[in-house]
């Protein structure tokens, strides 16, 4: 299964944030998305996850596993800046919902077993029954990342997964990405620290607000630079384009 992205453009608030981008990620491949702040790394991952509709271009999964033509959003596990951890619930309780949502679970066994193995993998098994409010920032992040191990999703989108993690946990993230790749999984990860992903392919995003467009993509940012006034295309979202 290959992730194919063609001429993908992401707009937010009428401004081109990244793109047009074209790349392919083969099964078992890890793509390290790099670029300065504001280059659109997070936006790219959010477009791929389906939170932001792509302004132009296409993205799809090719191949047999899973069912061809399945919606990308249903094959994606996303770990962003927010951990989706509820302080009022217990540590294990936080994960149980995601195990019970009916997504195919990883490995054998029921929801409880999946939660236990995910927690112990991230070194949180000893506090499984404690309220999540007692977690430190790093433990909370680990709890959020543990969600990746619950379900069997082939595409991982990780946005700065190692923020507030200690060195050992950051290394664990790299190990898990490697294991995911070994099973044919695709990972797109952004990070400003060296994750030690030897096999990862680097994909560099240039900031679109730069006056000179990136070489090789001279027409990339006409809308942003205004060099050639683009014909007024039907605004797909007048609410966000500011033309309402």
């Amino acid at each position, binding site marked *: 299964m290959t992730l194919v992205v063609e001429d993908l453009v992401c707009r*937010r608030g009428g401004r081109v944030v990244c793109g047009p981008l074209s790349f392919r990620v083969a099964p078992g491949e890890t793509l390290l998305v790099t670029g300065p702040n504001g280059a659109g790394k997070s936006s790219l991952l*959010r477009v791929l*996850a*389906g*939170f*932001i*509709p792509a302004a132009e271009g296409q993205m799809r999964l090719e191949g047999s596993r899973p069912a061809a033509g399945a919606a990308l*959003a*249903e094959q*994606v*596990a*996303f770990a*962003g*800046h*927010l*951990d*989706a*951890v*509820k302080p*009022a*619930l217990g540590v294990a*309780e936080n994960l*149980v*919902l*995601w195990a*019970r*949502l*009916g*997504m195919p679970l990883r490995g054998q066994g029921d929801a409880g077993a999946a939660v236990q193995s995910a927690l112990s993998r991230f070194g949180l098994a000893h506090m499984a029954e404690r309220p999540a409010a007692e977690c430190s920032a790093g433990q909370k992040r680990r709890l*959020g990342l543990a*969600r990746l191990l619950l379900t069997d999703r082939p595409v991982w989108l990780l946005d700065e997964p190692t923020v507030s993690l200690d060195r050992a946990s950051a290394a664990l993230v790299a190990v898990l990405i490697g294991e995911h790749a070994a099973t044919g999984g695709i990972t797109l990860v952004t990070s400003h620290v060296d994750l030690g992903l030897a096999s990862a392919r680097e994909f560099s995003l240039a900031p679109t607000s730069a006056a000179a467009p990136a070489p090789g993509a001279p027409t990339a940012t006409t809308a942003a630079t205004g060099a050639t006034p683009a014909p007024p295309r039907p605004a797909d979202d007048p*609410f*966000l384009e500011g033309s309402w």
Partner: protein
Amino acid sequence: MVSGAFGAVVGRDLALALRLGGGGAVGLAFFVLAVVLIPLGVGREPATLMRIAGGVVWIAGLLAALLSLDRLFQADHEDGTLEQLMLGPLALEQVVLAKALAHWLTTGLPMTLAAPLLALSLQLPVAALPALVAALLVGTPALSLVGAVGAGLTAGVRRGGLLLSVLVLPLYVPTLIFGARTVENALLNLPWLPPLALTAGLSLLALALCPFAAAAALRINAR
């Protein structure tokens, strides 16, 4: 499988509402307090209280439902839970429905159960109680469902509660009119089934439309 996932979302919202800081009982407490304060302000003239009892219970119910609505999606929006739910196997419309159901179970249902006692304190005759309970039972789901649309629109707004009230209260007017009318007709020995049916019809309309509207609003907020 989907019903299991639906139940999981409902169960989690209920658990969160009943934990510390979840605010599950706040709506009910506000409802009780607001109704109990009325005789203190209006005076304990039985004829006056009896006349206004139905309307008072309904207005207190609307405000109590609003009180907990602003956190319906905002908390999940802030901590990223909504993003994760959007990637799950449940359609966002189903998530909205599950959360609205949990909201109703922690506000509308308790208010319906508490209403007879409160109405008695407002001198509403026992004969009118079935109409009151029936109207609240079929009418309060509309409060949670219509409120979910407003909550979806204001999920990304800091201190969106006030904006939410302004958006949602006008939409509560039909339910208020027919719900209060049901009680009044029972009080006046008029047939109260027609206004009750209209109250129920409003809830069904909300059930049909609101999950889609709220989900669309949440998708915009997720960008």
